[in-house]
């Protein structure tokens, strides 16, 4: 949640692979090949990495399922009954309470929501939105967080002061509170291309909130790196600061950055759901796992499967990312102290 990884500074650089598992090292094997070898041996991490890939592929196939199997769009509403094999079958009971899953692959496999829309189709389309927001949000966090961290750590002085104080300001808000604040502003007014009608405004909010979580550890590591001999050598050769940052420092940060990617992806997906639940995220009729949870909770406790289905999907997806990320961290540097962070309370 909060200050969690300033002790990252002790993370070793990838060019000195730690070898505390007594592996016989063939000459010339690179640090990433070594990490991949360790990761491959971690069955649990590989399983959950595969599970996450499966979720991604299924969500990408949403139009195929919607068009060729279910024959219904994500926003198509059906009140009352649908025709299944020549028979009229109800999907909403009296008072429009959704009936649960039908387990019929072609018709409302996971049942209907309160507006008679196909939950299975919406789950896949919603997954696309949630994953898209998670991905874009994560990219925003990683790019700006790394940029700020490298600039602050390399130049120090007033640039460091400015960036660090801005980070302190962002850090003083709880993630969810800052998220709903900016989310509300963006939803009302929009900012350039980030209109409330697109998913990108939520992605922007989600990405922005977590920037300090990357800036701090990156800054700490850059401050250590800049004192090393090879940076000195580069400076003596007359390299410009920008070139040193990109071609000398950035490659040495890559294992840190890789470790944070799954963590930030998981956090971004959870924060999207949280903001949407509070009404400051994705707006209906766009489907995301957050909007599905929110609309399922509106009828609570009736139609609880509409809370359970998107909720469990979300938890399983995020958990896969987290467990895979944990294994990735162990594989990249077994002694690193970076631990996970949660996504709002």
């Amino acid at each position: 949640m909060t200050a969690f990884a300033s002790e990252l500074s002790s993370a070793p650089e990838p060019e000195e692979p730690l070898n505390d598992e007594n592996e016989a090292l063939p000459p010339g094997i690179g640090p990433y090949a070594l990490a991949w070898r360790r990761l491959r041996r971690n069955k649990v991490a590989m399983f959950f990495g595969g599970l996450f890939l499966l979720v991604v592929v299924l969500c990408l196939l949403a139009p195929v399922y919607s068009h060729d199997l279910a024959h219904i769009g994500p926003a198509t509403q059906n009140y009352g009954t649908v025709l299944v094999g020549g028979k009229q079958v109800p999907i909403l009971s009296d008072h429009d309470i959704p009936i649960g899953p039908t387990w019929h692959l072609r018709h409302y496999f996971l049942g209907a929501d309160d507006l008679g829309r196909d939950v299975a189709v919406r789950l896949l389309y919603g997954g696309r939105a949630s994953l898209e927001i998670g991905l874009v949000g994560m990219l925003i966090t990683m790019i700006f967080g790394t940029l700020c961290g490298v600039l602050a750590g390399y130049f120090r002085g007033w640039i460091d002061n400015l960036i660090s104080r801005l980070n302190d300001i962002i850090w003083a808000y709880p993630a969810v509170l800052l998220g709903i604040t900016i989310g509300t502003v963006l939803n009302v007014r929009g900012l350039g291309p980030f209109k409330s009608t697109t998913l990108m405004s939520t992605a922007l909010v989600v990405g922005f909130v977590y920037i300090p979580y990357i800036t701090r550890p990156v800054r700490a590591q850059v401050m250590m790196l800049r004192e090393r001999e090879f940076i000195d050598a580069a400076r003596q050769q007359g390299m410009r600061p920008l070139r040193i940052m990109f071609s000398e420092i950035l490659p040495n940060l890559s294992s840190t950055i890789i470790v944070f990617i799954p963590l930030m992806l998981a956090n971004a997906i959870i924060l999207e759901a949280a903001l949407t639940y509070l009404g400051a995220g994705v707006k209906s009729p766009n489907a995301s796992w957050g909007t599905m949870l929110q609309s399922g909770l509106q009828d609570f406790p009736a139609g609880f499967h509409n809370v359970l289905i998107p909720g469990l999907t979300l938890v399983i997806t995020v958990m896969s990312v987290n467990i895979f990320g944990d294994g990735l961290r162990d594989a990249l540097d077994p002694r690193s102290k970076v631990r996970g962070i949660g996504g709002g309370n």
Partner: protein
Amino acid sequence: MSRFVVRRLLTMVLLLFAISAVTFLLFIVALPGGNPASLIAGRLATAAEIHLINVRYGFDKPIYIQYLKTMGNIFTGAAYSYSQGFNVLSQIKAGLPATLSLAFGAGFFWLFASIVLGTLAAIHSGKYLDRVLTVLSMVGVSMPPFFLGALLIYYIGYKTGILPIGNYVPLTHNPAQWFWHLLAPWFTLSVLFIGFYSRVLRGSILDTVNEDYVRTARAKGLSERRVLVRHILRTSLLPIISLWGLDMAQVIGGGAILTETVYNLHGVGQLAAQSIGNFDTVTLMSIVMLTALAVVIMNALIDIFYAVLDPRIRL
């Protein structure tokens, strides 16, 4: 030492000023749904009425005067919600008992549980129990509180009727009911922190185990329990305690928005969530300031606390 404390407190004041300015700009300048005059006047207001309100509330004044006035109102308790008409401070005060009950109950539970689980995982590191606890902590950090809350309310509250379904009963009314109603919210809020903290503690213990002074303590012939409690845990707990301070500050300041909302506790966090829907900028701004205040003060306290413990930090 006193110079360090003074400088740290000065930074704190500056940070608070910056936060208030950013919050103000975000809400008053950037939020257009919030032309406050039309919110106060209502839907059928004439232009003259709106003009009157603009003059009365000072919305026609320059932006820095408005800023000073708004902040003054927030900190003296004279702020009124533009859209709802209530006094903001009295609303926050009404929400505080629920928020504080939630924060302290959950806070001590998650601290205790993560110390126990983190230590257990570290002692059994690499073995079966460690793996089970790792997976559990992964489930914990992957669980959005409002979903966990909905699960508990549905299965334990609604279906089986073991626990009550949400709501807050004041401690002064009925202590037993207060406890009973808060049991599920405490657990819900704690799960995420337990998952996170126990992992941090596990790693921190495993780093300490190889320190020289731990070997010395063992060599002296101290019992394993004594080595663990007096030598290992003593240092390993430091990162946990500072995390705990910051997270508690957030929860006290209304940061447990999701838990409070899903259990309908009517605390400060839920007030924040409701004011979003109403475009109630003044209330939201006040709560943001309250939370920031709690976090910034706690941050400064932790820094000073660390500086007392470790003179090298006082640079």
